[in-house]
């Protein structure tokens, strides 16, 4: 096994991990504020078509990514208004949001099927990414670097800033946060908007880098894996990063095993692994910490200050 071989395998891991890491990072912030949004897949798809369509029309992928973030936020605001201002059930509203996102993206996408987008070149110049080491450091799309920066920023934000502390307080005990004067609803609006923007960008990762084209439901269920990942992480940013890469390594190992002619287990077992492990981790940390680890106490519960 040469260095080049290992690095090429690592590049596969990074490529397959980045979109789920992105989507999960956004959802982590949402859940930390005490809201569970099951509409990640729908927001990703709206982001994917918007990123592609706008990038294509303006011939500038960066504008496309920006538009994907805006579209993701706009979609998430439907969810926010319903669950925060109108107090609807979060699970049902999130599922409806996924149905909405699939429908809306397909409808917009009918005019964009079969077009190839401009390649979205890595942000670093080519000459830095010539040798294997250069490639693994400088050879990725902007999404990869953004995902790394984002997850560290979220970790720092949640544990080292006052705003992060307030966000967590809102997720842990909304009534006491409200009683000491924090605007619970406004903070949750902001968290959901952020989650929507990041999910939109995660979607654009599919339509602009993984395969620069639009096809319906091209995210192929990654939004659900992202939800599993947040659970797996025990609501910690550091573990989210580690967990995402663990999932990515598992998926890549399966492919290597198959291509090398080994079938240690049926492939379905490998595919089920992330979910089985997520449940096992959940049980383990709950048994140890009494509750589901750092699971925000208010997760999924509506907050109606005057009700």
């Amino acid at each position, binding site marked *: 096994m040469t260095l080049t071989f290992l690095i090429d395998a690592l590049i596969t891991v990074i490529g397959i991990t980045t979109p789920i890491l992105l989507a999960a990072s956004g959802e982590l912030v949402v859940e930390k504020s005490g809201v569970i949004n099951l509409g990640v897949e729908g927001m990703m798809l709206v982001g994917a078509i918007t990123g592609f369509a706008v990038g294509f029309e303006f011939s500038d992928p960066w504008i496309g990514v920006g538009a994907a973030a805006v579209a993701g936020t706009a979609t998430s605001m*439907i969810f926010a208004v319903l669950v925060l201002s109108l107090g609807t059930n979060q699970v*049902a509203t999130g599922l*409806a949001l996924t149905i909405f996102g699939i429908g*809306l993206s397909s409808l917009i996408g009918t005019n964009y099927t079969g077009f190839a987008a401009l390649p979205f070149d890595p942000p670093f110049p080519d000459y830095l990414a010539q040798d294997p080491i250069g490639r693994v450091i400088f050879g990725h799309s902007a999404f990869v670097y953004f995902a790394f920066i984002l997850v560290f920023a979220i970790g720092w934000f949640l544990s080292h800033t006052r705003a992060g502390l307030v966000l967590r307080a809102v997720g842990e005990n909304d009534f006491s946060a409200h009683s000491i004067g924090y605007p619970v609803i406004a903070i949750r609006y902001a968290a959901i908007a952020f989650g929507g923007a990041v999910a939109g960008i995660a979607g654009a990762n599919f339509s602009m880098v993984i395969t620069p084209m639009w096809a319906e439901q091209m995210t192929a269920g990654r939004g659900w894996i992202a939800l599993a990942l947040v659970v797996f992480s025990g609501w910690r940013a550091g573990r989210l990063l580690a967990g995402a890469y663990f999932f990515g390594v598992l998926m890549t190992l399966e492919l290597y095993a198959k291509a090398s002619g080994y079938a240690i287990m049926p492939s379905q077992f490998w595919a089920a692994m992330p*979910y089985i492990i997520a*449940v096992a981790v*959940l049980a383990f940390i709950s048994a140890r910490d009494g*509750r*589901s680890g750092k699971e925000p106490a208010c997760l999924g519960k509506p907050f109606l200050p005057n009700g």
Partner: protein
Amino acid sequence: MRLVLEKRLEQSRTMVVLTPILSVIGVMILGVIIFDAIGYDGFDAVWQLFITPVIDTYKWRDVATKAAPLILIGLGLSIGNRAKIWNIGAEGQYIVGAISAAGVAYATQEMSGFWIIPLMLIIGMAGGAAYAAIPAGLKTRYGVSEVLSSLMLVYVSLQLLSYLITGPWKDPNGMNFPQTAQLTASQLLPRELGETGLPPGLLFALVGMIIFAIIVDRTVFGFSIRAIGEAPQAARFGGFNSNRIVWAALMISGGMAGLAGTLELMQLTRLNLGYPSGYGFTAIIVSLLGRSHPFGVFVAGIVLAVTYVGGQVAQTVVHVPNATAGLFQALILFAILASDLFVRYRIKIKSSVAEIRA
């Protein structure tokens, strides 16, 4: 002057009935405008989407076929909703129920007898319930959130299904396609109930609705699940065992999902890759739209089924893309969910800021 929400002391009965109807009408008007704007005959499109499945008696069979699994699963979920125990893994329990029933079918391929169908139904329910026992056990023993564990298990069940139909249960006469052998005559319920043309699942749904209505409104158990949901602390003092309620809610919803899965298996006559079609997720919405009451769940199941069937009609008649049907389904859900506010609150106009958040 500002608009302020004031909580109603009691849920408004008029609003319970009125708001969903007004929501649907609102979405229909919106639909006419949207379809016209994107270049279709708006009125015709909305007519086909919402009205044709209701007035065309021939379409009722199709509506019933879609509605039956939604209602059955939704009934089971409504128990958990009332106790605020959120089983969102019904899709997984639906799949495992069907797998269990298919296991019976696999073992009884060479046999015949009146006992095979009831056995499949019972084992299907047991399989669904057993799969729901995992989140129940994890919740009562370790305090694991059932929302998350049940959702994760859906994806495990999909892989289990894929493994069985591509591996050990692959139909030996199926030209090596990933599917199980077709059920035999003694493993299938009649396709239709007599002359009505309606699927047997609808009969199960009707009977289920009545049984659940009795349980919810007339039994101590029905009272205790509501008590747990509304005031867990008080209920505990009152002598209700909350762990038992968690088990009951999950086992009942898992069992109902398993039953729906088995009936669907009998409709499809075999398991294949196309078998899981998301009824378990849609049923969550159905149970909540029906306000977790058996009668409401029944109606909500029909409403959702109408939008599915209408979507197909609109595709063939007005040629709107399938995506729009999904879009309108989502809009109806949003509207009905939002309108729930008017059931619980009334809007008041207040003039002084000081009164807000009284």
